[in-house]
């Protein structure tokens, strides 16, 4: 006999399958919220099938402390698993489907509810068959079951026969029993809340060690680790460590996690910690014999994390130009080692570009940040400039200029910009020792403020 348990409202943190294992090891998880159990031979433990079903329903209502699900479940007992599944998913409470009387119970179910996946019928085929049945006026299992088998076979094929058997509750199959999937997550609840990093590091080390041991056991690695800390103020502090390539070295993880926690400390003392990861296949790499050694990726990652701690995350990485007319618009991309072929491709592209763009152009030294300037202008044309900061100062009379070069954009957003650029030759010093330098200045048109952006070599 087979018992199907259907729990549509099971709490997310509870497992129906775990619950089912408490009755028999022969459990098939049909889908989330539905399991079917082979209870053959369980009579000595639980009594008759009906008693077993009562036991299942009663225990499911119980609290989680006592192994319950804290919810009401539907239970059906039948001679074949599919009939039990259909009965449990459609009928509330406990249903007993006698052998040979399946249609009495299932007969009124609409054919739309045939669980075609149970008999390995694809959705597309099943939909087509159901459409045909609809045209035939077949609406329930009871309508479908008595159709002549040869007629059904001729018209709907073997899939039709399988569905008809399913409707009649006459399928014969073994349960599809699966091994539980490995879990790569560990958590701990602390007796006393911790607010210092050092004691936390021991907890991190322990959890990460367990996690990496599990990964090792399955010959897996991870490139992303999630850490969630329950805080004293009832909030959760969540962090995600992204790694450039899959690893499973708990020491590296620990160092990275500690650095990250230093950069982003929790706002209150920590009461519980859980660490999980997404397992992936480890990277297998063999460096070439003549290729110069690059820094070890794990060490590089640690170095980058240390640098990020020093300068801020947004200030580390590789600059990448943005596709916009906005001058000097760039974003920081995560720094990553490129492999040899990538490097060669890039070199080749750069060479081609340089051949095309073989222009004679001046080098430009950009002031970061730009110097705010006081500019005297005659009818919009700059005539005198003075700007200074701690590091440098720029001043002088404009003796030559080109411009303005105007760019405006992002008009559909709040951060719209508009500016006029000028290339100016400034003359400074006295008449005997006058010096001329070439600068780029610009004026923010929204704020009317002038800046010196840099100078040409």
């Amino acid at each position, binding site marked *: 006999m087979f018992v199907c348990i259907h729990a549509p409202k099971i709490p997310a943190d509870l497992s129906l399958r775990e619950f089912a294992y408490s009755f028999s090891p022969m459990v098939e998880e049909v889908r989330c919220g539905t399991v079917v159990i082979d209870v053959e031979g369980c009579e000595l433990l639980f009594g008759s099938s009906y008693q077993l079903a009562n036991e299942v329903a009663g225990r499911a209502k119980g609290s989680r402390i006592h192994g319950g699900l804290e919810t009401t479940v539907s239970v059906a007992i039948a001679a074949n698993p599919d009939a039990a599944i259909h009965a449990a998913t459609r009928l509330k409470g406990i249903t007993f489907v006698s052998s040979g009387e399946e249609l009495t119970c299932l007969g009124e179910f609409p054919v739309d509810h045939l669980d075609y996946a149970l008999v390995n019928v694809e959705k597309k085929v099943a939909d087509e068959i159901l459409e*045909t049945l609809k*045209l035939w*006026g077949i609406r329930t299992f009871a309508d479908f079951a008595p159709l002549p088998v040869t*007629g059904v076979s001729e*018209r709907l094929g073997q899939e039709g026969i399988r569905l008809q058997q399913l409707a009649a509750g006459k399928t014969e199959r073994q349960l599809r029993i699966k091994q539980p999937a490995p879990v790569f997550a560990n958590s701990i609840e602390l007796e006393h809340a911790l607010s210092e990093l050092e004691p936390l590091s021991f907890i991190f080390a322990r959890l990460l060690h367990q996690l990496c041991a599990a990964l090792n056991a399955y010959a897996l690695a991870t490139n992303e680790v999630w850490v969630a800390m329950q805080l004293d103020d009832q909030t959760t502090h969540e962090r995600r460590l992204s790694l450039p390539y899959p690893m499973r070295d708990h020491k590296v993880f620990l160092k990275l996690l500690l650095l990250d926690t230093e950069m982003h400390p929790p706002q209150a003392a920590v009461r519980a910690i859980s660490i999980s990861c997404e397992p992936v296949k480890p990277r297998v790499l063999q460096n070439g014999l003549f290729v110069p050694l690059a820094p070890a990726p794990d060490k590089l990652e640690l170095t980058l994390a240390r640098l990020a701690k020093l300068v801020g995350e947004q200030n580390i990485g590789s600059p990448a130009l943005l596709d916009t007319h906005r001058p000097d618009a760039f974003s920081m991309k995560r720094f990553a080692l490129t492999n040899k072929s990538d490097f060669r491709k890039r070199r080749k592209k750069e060479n081609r570009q340089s051949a095309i*763009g073989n222009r004679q152009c001046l080098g430009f030294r950009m002031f970061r940040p730009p110097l705010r300037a006081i500019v005297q202008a005659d009818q919009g044309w700059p005539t005198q400039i003075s700007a200074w900061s701690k590091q440098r100062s720029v001043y002088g009379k404009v003796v030559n200029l080109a411009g303005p070069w*105007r760019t*405006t954009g992002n008009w559909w957003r709040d951060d719209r910009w508009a500016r006029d650029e000028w290339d100016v030759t400034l003359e400074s010093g006295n008449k005997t020792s006058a010096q001329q330098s070439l600068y780029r200045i610009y004026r923010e048109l929204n704020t009317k403020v002038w800046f010196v952006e840099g100078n040409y070599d």
Partner: protein
Amino acid sequence: MYVELHARSAFSFLEGASVPEELIAAGVELQMPAMALLDRNGVYGAPRFHLSAKKNEIKAHIGAEISVQRPKSKDQSPTNICSVPVLVKNRQGYQNLSRLITLMKMRVPKHAKPGECVVTSEELAAHATGLICLTGGFDGPIAGAINRRVAESAEEAQRSVEWLTDLFGKKNVYAELQRHFDREEEARNHLVIEIARRNRLPLLATNGVCHAIPARREVSDVFTCIRNHVRLETAGRLLAQNSETYLKSGAMMRKLFADLPEAIANTSELSSRLKFTLGDLGYEFPKYPVPPGETMTSFLRKRTEEGARLRYTGVNDAPAYEKARPQIERELKLIEKLKLEGYFLIVWDIVQFCRKEGILIQGRGSAANSAVCYSLGITAVDPIGMELLFERFLSEERGEWPDIDLDLPSGDRRERAIQYVYTRYGKLGAAMTANVITYRGRSAAREVGKVLDFGEETLSRLAGLVHTWEWKDPNDSSERQFRNAGLDLHNPRIRKFFELYQMVQDLPRHLGQHSGGMVICKGQLDSIVPLEPAAMPGRVVVQWDKEDCADLGLIKVDLLGLGMMAVLEDSIKLIRDSYGEEVDLAHLPQNDPAVYEALQKADTIGMFQVESRAQMSCLPRLRPMNFYDIVVQVAIIRPGPIVGNMVHPYLKRRQGREPVTYAHPLLEPVLRRTLGVPLFQEQLLRIAMLCANFSGGEAEELRRAFGFKRSEARMKAIEVKLRQGLLKNGITGKTQDEIVLAISSFALYGFPESHAASFALIAYASAYLKCNYLAAFTAAILNNQPMGFYQPFTLIKDAQRHGLKVLPIDITCSDWLCTIEEETGRRGDGEKGRRGEAGTREGEAETLGRVDAAQGEHRVPASPHLPLSLFPRLSVTESSLALRLGLKYVKGLSKQSGLAIVRERAVRDFLSIDDLSNRVPELRKDELRKLAAVGALNFIQASTGSKTKVSPKTNRRDALWQVERVTRAPGKLYEALLEKDGNSPLQQMTLTERVDADFRGTGLTIGKHPVAYHRGELNRLKALKAIDIRKLRDGTFVRVAGWVIVRQRPGTAKGFMFLSLEDETGVSNIIVTPQLFDQYRLELVGHPFLLIEGALQNQDNVVSVKASHVKPLSLEPQKGTKTRNILFKFP
């Protein structure tokens, strides 16, 4: 003085962001003396640019940017293609440009990819005369040369300039400089200046204008995104660098080019060299080829003479030929004076072709005012008999070409007429006028929303905001609409969307083709306007729309498709084949009592022009009694009379409830026929002529000035003249004001009497055919769907209520189209006729009005609810005929399969479904299923009698059972196991299942009306039938229920909504007030079945319910019936 000589309008589709009028307005504002429009590969916007410039007294230069493949290169990549701006110097230049663009466009399909639509250097050289070339901006030849090979850019640019000077001559090439505050552009300018000085080319400053004002840059960027299929966020450097491509004043340009004053000065110099304007188009209407020894004048006179003698022979009380002669002579003289003989002969030629081919054709519109048109057979309304005003059609003063609209049966027959014109005048001699598709409504909302990166859900909500109802609630502000849709206009993105949505309104999106307007210019149309291929094979369109063509004096002929013409033509054929009678539309019996009885009772479903809800509510009040009444009826339900408050006074006077008075005795002869109420445009012209001493042409000018509201100043001037004229005739004070008000309010929407008369002819013909040949008329109208106001289901139910027997779709009898059968046998075949009875076997009392022919002379409606007086009886001949639905009505059955069935059946009958499947391999499985589900396969076994292996009790389910078997080949291995008989274990369909299958499969049912199945439940709800409420008194509180067949909210109805609810006995008319509409908007708009409560209005036999409460109905089957849980699904 600066002249902008390089401006693009929004007719550079998805590149420019301002319409030509905006550019001209900006030019006028900046006191620019002239301006040039250079749109991309076309002169689409040139007419509007020219007319707007003319109105504003500035000079409009014409040109275009032509995509050219650079010489000496086999590289086809887009980078090898540059855009050469050319300006038209003289008429030859314009003709060359037009031919060049035609050449480019005609060899590629309509939706050619960028880079495909180009001309070669040789082609450009062949058409360079009369054109002046600029070296272009960012996509010009020099910029292209620099971009291609930077290292050799100077040499390459030099070669490009040499290429251009070789093509156009040194004097006709200008080195173009643009300054948009861009570094790269300035570097290019340096090179251009250097090359220009070296080659002694004049410098020319332009601003490469893409929009009239800086704010329009946003639209330009949005268009860039649409063109490149990107979002604003991801468009990057595809967007404009700044907003500088707007129209700049001379002062600004002088400041920009302070270092190059000659570049500015040269703009005036070049402008003075450009002599051509579109006013100098040189268009001449083609000459009609006449036989030797004839001139067009003599030929036209002869044809008119012949026609006039035929038409005016005293038939139908028409005035005799001699009476008509002076008017014809007057018209001919004017036609000759205006040199329009060719035009009339060409139209006559098209009409002759249609006559020969048996294609029904009728002229309408103002042409019906002409006795010459009537004599030539172009129109069917006698203008002399109807006292129509010729000046409305043609006048010497107006200086405009006449406009003849020809109605043709829609579909293939109209296409044949169009193809005849192409054949007769050559591919480059005739073309359809274009229809500029502009940004409007939902599409604009969607495209702008996409560019702003809104999600699909938000896009749908934004698009949903665009109202499709004709009526716009004045209180329905945009803020309110957005708020109702859950969108906050204070949100910057939503606000930006709203701004952009408004900015793109009415900007051109792409070019379509006009529904029927054709321009003809034998063999040389491509020198007048560029031509391009239409999406439809075999069609060519001009780059200008109908109005532009008219404004530039291009004569067009409108070949319009009219569904009802096709119905009339098909009806005549069906009558000939099935009734054995010949009906001549030109000689229909006048004043047929059945027609007027139907019209007076508003029993007009399916009839042309008088079937709408508004017409039906007016008919019982107007009670048409003769043909002129139908003319009035057609014209009265129009915005003009409604807005001008003419409808009620006319109806009251007609019913004798109000005395017939005239504002002034002078008006009496003009308004006598319409009881003192002006209803037609011609009357207004006559009033102006009689009371204000206007000539015919002046009167027409007056109508146009008021009608199109083109210029306030022009309207004011003509009003002054009108008042002066009235004063001279002693019409002053209130009377004068009344007349001026009538003319001004009426001119915009008023309907020409001639047009109404042409339509009334068709309306009368349709009514005559419906009343006398119902089967043929119904079959024809069903075969020409979609058309008219009503769904096929409503048309069928109406025909059934009139006693027509409708037979189901039957694979053994049905053709692709609906046909007529003799009730006792299919097309005279007695044996097959019995299959019709088989059709009723399945519980199919499928015809409501079906009665055994033996019952008597006339067929009577079978329903006990239908009194004999309500629906007219069928004639003896017709009572023996039945309508057989065609295979066309099986949804999802391809025409190819349907025709294949008919073809195979003609060879021999189908023996079984197996046989059908084998012999018609075109039939797909789903098509067979659909045929079985609608019962079309029920009769196969019956047709073969005892030969069938299958039980004779075939029903839809039997057929479905067999269909599944024949479509699945079992293979030889299993043949022995197969069932030997086709007995189906399935249960027959119930009544409601059949109705459901009918609606799913055909969109209609010939059985009982779906509402009839629920009458018990509706009775319990105390809902009355449509037929019952007619007997009740005005003011009675009633409840009615039915299926909503028509929803209308006309613009003239001040927010009222009109519903038509159909049940098994007829149609109930419901009036919904604006307040109630707001209250029940969802129910009224979305639910197919409604229960409505309200007070009955029964005035002058016009019955309607003024709704006070609305409830949606879900018509689930009643308990206790064997219908199972089926909910009807209706289309």
